[in-house]
């Protein structure tokens, strides 16, 4: 089963992204003035979407810009409340005791940005299309759906072929977004969603402007406009913040942070993410098929020192990050021990090992340098092959042609990749697959979480990969800005509640 794993393409473009334990200057600053409903909020992001077609084009840049702001599903998730599922286009839902039937009550009074009213038919066709068309992002999330129907104008019922405890969460993603039935809008360059913002203007290579949708069903957006300013270069982004061109700068370079703080107009925030820096071992290729070799490679790396070097990172000792169900603190499961690593390599007969690391060129060179030095210390020669992201997708993701690979996996709840032997990790463990299947099939959240934790423990024990760090990107938020979201900003940026005060 293939699960979603949007990679941190956005975050990545940046050079030195990472920092240590968050010295975020805490305390929400008291906004200096009244919230101004006519204000424009300007936010710096690094990576621009290549088009606006959120149904078919991958990349976190689109999730950030459009989900919750322009497009909505029946439900969404609240990043700042532990990714809790909350109502969106459905006001309420019930799940049958066997976990197979989901009944949603549609919200009345919802309109698309072209003014037409949302109907149950729009919901049914959107979901049916997403299920039937393989070119739609995360279509596989709905593969298990047996039927989608609407018994009356305000109800939509979905039945599953087998229970899936992650189903509601899947509906908060791309496959669950609702579009107007028979819409002729060119979704590559325009939109017709139901969210609190319309796309007002897209200056390619520069910015995307969202404007408050006055016909919105809920509380109207707190600002009249949101401008997403795409500034890939870190020093240009810092300058933009210092000179006041942006109200919020996401994913700032910690080395340049002091310049931004020096203005006194920003506080530095660092929220939680599910953005895992994974050093994948090709579990299907010798000598990495040998667990001793994999363990040795993990023992050779001082993860605390790495997190400190990268700055916007904290250690992550297993496949599941703290925001996801099944998280357990696995600290100590692997601790820096080069001597033991050398022993293990000798036992495995893998002395004078030479391996290649395939890494997209969007990541800072510091990371590869750190690994080269760590491995050299235990007698492993690491060659670094920097490629662009597109090449990585072809060579590593599709063709599995690699020894070691590094990318950041930003998406939440993507443990399923460890239960899928055809995924590029190539990790094939029947016990993990069984536990994962059970964790989905149960209708009890606690039980599901326990099963996941058990499976995660095995993946960790088997040293299926090295979880180098969990990203803790820093955002500079203007003191004139209130209610800016904090967690998982690399996949969701809900702007509806954000306000900007007049100075």
């Amino acid at each position, binding site marked *: 089963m*293939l*699960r*979603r*794993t*949007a*990679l941190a393409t956005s975050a990545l473009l940046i050079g030195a992204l990472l920092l240590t334990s968050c010295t975020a200057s805490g305390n929400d600053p008291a906004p200096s003035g009244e919230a101004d409903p006519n204000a424009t909020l300007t936010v710096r992001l690094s990576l*621009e979407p*290549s*088009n606006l*077609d959120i149904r*078919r*084009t*991958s*990349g976190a840049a689109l999730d950030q810009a459009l989900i919750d702001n322009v497009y909505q599903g029946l439900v969404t998730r609240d990043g700042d409340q532990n990714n809790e599922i909350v109502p969106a286009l459905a006001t309420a839902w019930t799940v049958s005791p066997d976990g197979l039937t989901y009944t949603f009550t549609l919200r009345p009074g919802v309109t698309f940005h072209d003014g037409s009213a949302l109907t149950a038919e729009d919901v049914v066709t959107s979901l049916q299309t997403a299920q039937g068309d*393989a*070119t739609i*992002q*995360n*279509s*596989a999330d709905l593969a298990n759906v047996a039927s989608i129907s609407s018994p009356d104008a305000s109800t939509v019922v979905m039945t599953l072929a087998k229970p899936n405890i992650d189903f509601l969460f899947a509906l908060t993603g791309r496959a669950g977004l609702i579009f107007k039935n028979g819409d002729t809008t*060119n979704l*590559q*360059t325009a939109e017709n969603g139901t969210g609190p913002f319309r796309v007002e*203007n897209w*200056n*390619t*290579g*520069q*910015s995307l*402007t969202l404007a408050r949708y006055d016909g919105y069903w809920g509380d109207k957006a707190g600002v009249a406009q949101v*401008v997403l*300013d*795409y*500034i*890939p*270069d870190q*020093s*240009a982004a810092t*300058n*933009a913040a*210092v*000179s006041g*061109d942006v109200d919020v700068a996401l994913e700032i370079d910690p080395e340049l942070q002091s310049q931004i703080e020096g203005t006194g107009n920003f506080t530095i925030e660092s929220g939680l993410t599910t953005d895992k820096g994974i050093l994948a071992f090709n579990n299907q290729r010798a000598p990495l098929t040998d667990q001793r070799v994999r363990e040795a490679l993990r023992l050779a790396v001082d993860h605390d020192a790495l997190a400190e070097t990268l700055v916007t990172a904290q250690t992550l000792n297993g496949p599941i990050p703290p925001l996801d169900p099944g998280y357990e603190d696995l600290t100590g499961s692997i601790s820096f021990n080069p001597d033991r690593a050398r022993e293990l390599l000798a036992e495995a007969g893998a002395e004078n090992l030479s391996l290649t690391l395939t890494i997209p060129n969007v990541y800072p060179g510091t990371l590869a340098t750190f690994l080269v030095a760590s491995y050299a210390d235990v007698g492993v020669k690491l060659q670094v092959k920097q*490629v*662009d*992201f*597109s*090449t990585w*997708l*072809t*060579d590593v*993701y*599709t063709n599995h042609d690699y020894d070691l690979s590094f990318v950041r*996996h930003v998406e939440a709840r993507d443990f399923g990749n460890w239960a899928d032997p055809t995924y590029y990790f190539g990790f094939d463990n029947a016990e993990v697959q069984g536990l994962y299947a059970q964790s989905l099939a149960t209708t009890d959240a606690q039980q599901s979480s326990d099963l996941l934790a058990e499976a995660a423990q095995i993946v960790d024990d088997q040293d299926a990969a090295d979880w180098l760090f969990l990203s803790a990107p820093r955002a500079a938020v203007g003191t004139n800005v209130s209610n800016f979201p904090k967690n998982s900003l690399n996949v969701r940026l809900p702007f509806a509640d954000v306000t900007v005060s007049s100075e």
Partner: protein
Amino acid sequence: MIRYALTRLGLLVLGLVVASALIFVSLRVLPGDIAQLVGGTQASPDQVEALRERLGLTAPLWQQYVDWIGGLLRGDLGSSLLTGTPVASELVAKAQVTVPLAVMSLTVALVVGIPFGVLSALGRHRAGGTALSVGAQALAAVPVVWAGMMLVVVFAVWLGWLPPQGFPRAGWSDPAAAFRALILPALTIGVVEGAMLLRFVRSATLQAIGQDYVRTAAAKGLTRTRALVRHGLPNVGLSIITVLGLQVAGIIVGAVVIEQLFTLPGVGRMLVADVAARDLPKVQGELLALTGFVLVVGFVVDLLHRVIDPRQREAS
């Protein structure tokens, strides 16, 4: 003259044909695949195949090339696979940043290069001339990116006179802001290119000073400077035109880099983004347009030579 122009034009067209083939082939050799990028890391091989079909990428390569050339002959540069927007209209939109930037850069290069080049040649035995020459040598060796960062630090961050990055969202409907946004980038490219031009003008001028006709003119009673200006510089001008033709290409390359550094929504930034997205039909249209532009500049330079230099006219 007309025969000469037609020959050059023939070469220009031949150059374009060769360039189109080179561009097409080199882009196809590039690893990576747009369908894979659009599908991302959740797409299975089957889904990628479905996307490839949707994007119309299943036709054999030779047919894609023939289709492209066919479109070019009808004046159609192609369209983006990702947005469906015609390449030509995208180029026109982005040229509103890049063309003014190039013109401003060229102006800076000329202002820096020509007068100071001549001055540094004339004053070669004095401290000022030597300083100019050494300074130019140093500047010409400076990477454009570094020059840009230094200019930003001084004029945008310390002095706060000019914006450090970006272009006004209103574009040229806010002409003052748009112009201000281009000053630092243009200075960055212009000063570095100008320093190269300065060195060239200096050595060309030095050569002219040593020419017999300049000495003769001086012997007839003109001052050395006047002899140089009246008789030497017109000859220098010819080779400067050639160098300027080459520098136009340099400025375009400089613009690609500088647009990243200053976050300017111009042709260069678009090109880099399109390559990263593997939007090959768009990239090949853009590259061909740029190649065509450089070839046309070369063509014009060749013709200008003919028009200006009687010796070349007679020779044919």
